[in-house]
């Protein structure tokens, strides 16, 4: 893991841009997220700050691995993002100094403003902290296998331990609406996603296709809610809040429909947790489907289970794909398009024969996969998982190892 910290103050950043500039924010989704200087949340925070101070932010773009040059190129050339990149005069990447070189290579005709300093490499420890173990010589710090905490690194190198503080920017002019959720009055930003508003107010709505880093799809139908004045049930992940909205998120009818959907998913394939990498809930791998099945107290499906076993794809050196555990939520396809910028994963076939496949139904290894793990990181079940294998025996034979992070 590459260790980077924020190197510029908000004032210093503003001094490098003007209100005439058109800004694109871009963030790597790996090491800088763990170091607290990157990711979708940080980009949103910085975009809000800049907009509140009168700067024009054209968009935010999350890239699965920022130090992979061709992925940055794919984001620049993406048909949905290209116009923003073409119009932009300034790129602010939330990325390490190494990834910065890839960004500068791709956006050689733009002003690129770096906000980080890369101090060296380190670890994500079992105690949940990030430490710097192998600093660059230029830092003047010694090697330390126990590692330096980021606060110590920041102090020694004159860097900032945290991301920009939103209080440093002017107050945002935000339009708020008042709505009622399950009888409680709630205030939210106009246009905010209803599912997010519910989560922020401690109301959990089951969902499998929605992911906060991806576009809305509304395909799993688990998050359907009742909205007064609307005849149909509405997917809360695709519904934006409005003044006076009256919402019911949980009642007998909605929970009945959710149980049916979960039972149909259970029956769609052989969701066998005994042979699944995400079957053991732990901090780094837990199955969202299994959690919902348990939450709704479902013991078995009332529907006929599809016994057909599809062939897993273990061709990739780092990704395992088991179509039998896929629920067709489409998160992986959206992540491959929106975060990786590749569009390598998509749906193939039709009807009950629909499956997710790489490279228009090639093996993963033969496809255009960049092994960036964007798909694996968002998969809610054990369909796409990281490969863990053991080798032993005279001929060094391979054997699958199931996820179990107990120490």
């Amino acid at each position, binding site marked *: 893991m590459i260790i980077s910290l924020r190197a510029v103050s908000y004032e210093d950043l503003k001094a490098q841009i003007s209100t005439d500039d058109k800004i694109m924010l871009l963030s790597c989704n790996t090491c800088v997220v763990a170091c607290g200087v990157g990711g979708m949340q940080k980009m949103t925070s910085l975009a809000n700050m800049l907009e509140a101070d009168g700067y024009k932010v054209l968009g935010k773009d999350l890239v699965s691995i920022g130090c992979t040059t061709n992925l940055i190129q794919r984001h620049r050339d993406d048909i949905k993002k290209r116009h923003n990149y073409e119009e932009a005069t300034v790129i602010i990447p939330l990325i390490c100094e*190494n990834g910065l070189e890839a960004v500068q290579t791709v956006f050689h005709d733009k002003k690129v403003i770096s906000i980080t300093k890369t101090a060296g490499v380190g670890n994500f420890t079992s105690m949940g902290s990030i430490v710097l173990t192998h600093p660059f010589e230029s830092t003047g710090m010694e090697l330390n296998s126990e590692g330096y905490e980021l606060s110590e690194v920041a102090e020694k190198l004159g860097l900032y331990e945290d991301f920009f503080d939103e209080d440093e920017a002017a107050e945002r002019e935000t339009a708020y609406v008042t709505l009622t959720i399950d009888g409680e009055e709630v205030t939210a930003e106009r246009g905010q996603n209803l599912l997010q508003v519910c989560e922020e107010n401690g109301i959990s709505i089951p969902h499998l296709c929605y992911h906060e880093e991806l576009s809305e799809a509304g395909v799993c139908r688990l998050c359907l809610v009742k909205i007064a004045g609307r005849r149909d049930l509405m997917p809360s992940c695709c519904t934006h809040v409005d003044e006076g909205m009256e919402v019911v998120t949980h009642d007998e009818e909605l929970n009945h429909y959710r149980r049916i959907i979960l039972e149909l998913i259970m029956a769609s394939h052989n969701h066998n947790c005994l042979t699944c990498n995400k079957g053991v809930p732990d901090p780094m791998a837990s199955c969202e489907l299994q959690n919902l099945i348990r939450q709704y107290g479902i013991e078995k499906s009332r529907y006929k289970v599809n016994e057909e076993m599809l062939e897993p794809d273990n061709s990739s050196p780092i990704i395992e794909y088991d179509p039998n555990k896929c629920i067709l939520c489409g998160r992986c396809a959206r992540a491959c398009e929106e975060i990786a910028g590749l569009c390598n994963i998509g749906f193939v076939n039709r009807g009950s024969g629909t499956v997710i496949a790489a490279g228009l139904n090639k093996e993963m290894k033969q496809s255009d996969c960049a092994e960036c793990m964007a798909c694996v990181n968002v998969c809610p079940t054990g369909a796409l998982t*990281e490969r863990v294998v053991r080798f032993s025996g005279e001929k060094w034979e391979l054997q699958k190892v199931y996820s179990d992070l107990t120490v």
Partner: protein
Amino acid sequence: MIFTKSLDIEDIKKDLDKDNDVIAIIGCETCVRVSGSGGDEKMKELALKLRSDGYNVKEGFMIPTACTPKIFLAKPGRSVNTILSLACSAGTSNLERELSQYKVVRTTEDIGLMIHDTVTEAIKITMPYDSHKDEKGNEYEAHTGKALKRGMTEKVEVGA
């Protein structure tokens, strides 16, 4: 990503005890594999070479990332007392800290940080450590670590 080169097998053997070490190799599937100094084939090559030289290599684990708690996905057998780290320095220090009951022996050396192009399969060194400062700008073939002529990482645009 972190670019590494394999240490010479004779240097690795200097840290091993043929009579007493029972060895498990733990390999990382991320940077070290892309650098060409790790991955399944390198692990097998290292294991079989050491075995042929009389070392007791029991097993190997390939895990997603060695610089995170995912190292606990590797569960060495009871008899194992030595871990050969097929990871970068970050992964190796993580193994040393978290699996302190084992002797941990490194098999690679960090050169510096790299950017990667999965279309041209080229790697470029951007931020080398001072001891390898001449490597800045050098390019290598991904997954093999073979040296390339400079300019590969800028050469190919998507769709070209």
